[in-house]
């Protein structure tokens, strides 16, 4: 669905004390493939290029070198622009600054209105989308009556109404409290599973990568790690050099492992931790000196 090859993106930066503009490389040769229906999480510290990468996916930015193919279309080709934007929807970090309508249903309809969809169909799709994200009884509300989590869900509704194949989210939970974050994550997983939507989630919360099919870690404009969460999170030393915040249970399991207890890698949730602990506990209780490592 998404095929990126050798993507390079540079941007000009003007130094604060005057002088010549300098070119900074935001993306330094990225190669990436995303298949239909995958749930991909892109992690990385600030400055790793993940947001820049996201913006290439719906042609808000064009490559300086290399190519980006979305659903078989080249993003560098001018004529393909709106077809690609039909295919890939995008949700941004600040909930307020992407809501345009004066009521919930009006905002949800925006994308459809722009595409010249027939009014009756607009109404039907808006109804459907609001139902999907859980806001049907708030359709006449002004957006300022919504909580942060509800606003992001509205933004997602607006994108989903246009039925894209893929939705890219650039740090959608950065400004939300933990409750709202959970709401949004639950919705995204549901969209991925029930509506077969490809989800590309950019975030710096490690915890959000737990349910993903694939985790990609970026550093200095390059893909540093790419694989399943289990594979990626097993390399804790690498993660720590990348300044990524490891969940407490993961860190605890690792430290216990260092003290000789064979916690398997990686431990990502409380439940997994409890299961591992019990497994080791029971082995030891049975008096087995050598507790086998779980492969």
């Amino acid at each position, binding site marked *: 669905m998404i095929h990126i090859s050798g993507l390079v993106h540079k941007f000009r930066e003007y130094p604060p004390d005057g002088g010549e503009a300098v070119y900074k490389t935001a993306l330094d040769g990225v190669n990436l493939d995303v298949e239909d229906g995958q749930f991909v999480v892109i992690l990385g510290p600030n400055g790793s290029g993940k947001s820049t990468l996201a913006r290439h996916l719906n042609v808000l930015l064009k490559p300086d070198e290399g190519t980006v193919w979305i659903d078989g279309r080249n993003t560098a080709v001018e004529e393909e622009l709106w077809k690609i934007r039909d295919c890939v929807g995008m949700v941004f970090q600040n909930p307020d600054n992407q809501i345009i309508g004066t009521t919930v249903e009006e905002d949800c309809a925006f994308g459809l209105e722009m595409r010249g969809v027939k009014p009756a169909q607009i109404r039907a799709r808006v109804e459907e989308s609001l139902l999907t994200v859980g806001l049907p009884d708030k359709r006449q509300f002004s957006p300022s009556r919504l909580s942060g989590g509800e606003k992001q869900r509205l933004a997602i509704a607006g994108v989903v109404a246009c039925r894209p194949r893929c939705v890219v989210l650039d740090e959608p939970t*950065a400004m939300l409290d933990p409750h709202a974050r959970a709401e949004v994550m639950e919705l995204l997983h549901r969209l991925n599973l029930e509506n077969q939507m490809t989800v590309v989630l950019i975030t710096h919360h490690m915890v959000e990568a737990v349910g993903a099919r694939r985790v990609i870690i970026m550093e200095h404009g390059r893909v540093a790690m790419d694989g399943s969460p289990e594979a990626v999170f097993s390399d804790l030393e690498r993660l720590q050099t990348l300044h990524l915040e490891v969940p407490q249970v993961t*860190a605890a399991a690792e430290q216990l492992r260092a003290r000789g207890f064979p916690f398997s890698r990686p431990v990502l949730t409380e439940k997994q931790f409890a299961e591992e602990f019990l497994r080791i506990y029971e082995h030891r209780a049975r008096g087995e000196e050598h507790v086998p490592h779980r492969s």
Partner: protein
Amino acid sequence: MNTVQGGKSMCLIEADHVSFSYPDVSRTILQEVTFSIAQGEFIGLIGASGSGKTTLVKQLNGLLRPTAGRILLNGQDTGRRPFRLAELRRHVGLVFQYPEHQLFKGTVLEDGAFGPSNLGASPEEARQAAREALSLVGLGPEFENRSPLELSGGEMRLAAIAGVLAMRPELLILDEPAAGLDPAAKERMLVLLRNIRAERGTSILLVSHSMEDIANCTDRVLALSGGRLLSDASPSLVFQQVGRMQELGTGVPQITAAAEELRRRGISVPSLPITVSEAVNCFETLLREDCHDR
């Protein structure tokens, strides 16, 4: 669940049965909230959205006046003459969420000096205070003459915090200072708060949604729910009540929840750990001692 504060003289600020509701609204936002903060303490304030945290915090720095009850500063009732409520601002600094939005002066130094000048400092004194504050947050002299708008997001936030620090408050309240920051920057922020306390003896009140941060940094936790203060104790004590904290809407640190899960499955965990190092020691002990028992 109240801990005993060491002597009235150590008490910097006290809330005494503070209640608050807005003039034309019937709903009470705060109900009989009572607690005290001593000099040099690092306190955490937690509660679900809408529990009244921001309103409470605004009572402490005089932006709002309690409808009932009083706020005492060093034993003095701030609601009565000769004390003017506006004076509280000298002693209690309040850093809102996304404080970088309030920067407006031409240079970082000028912006930092804004607070002290408003409090009556001479221009030179104000600039000196700003310089010290900027240095404390890690922004060196090279930042002084730059426009705040040129700085990176993280730097802007530090500059904004320096602007409040420059007023030399005895209590610094921060509402989610790490909001929107990536993990590395968040860690630096928490280290900064500890430094501020260490270097200036400032008391810190941290409002946060991250129970992990609260567990790692604070001496004492105030838990608010529906405008009432439900808990006022050390984080270790407060987070023992996992179910209650989940009802409150705040939850507990992840590692505490994991330990609770173990308890549920039959492991007798003596006391729920709240930090990773506590947890590792606790679990190690459990795994080893069990070996001997059987």
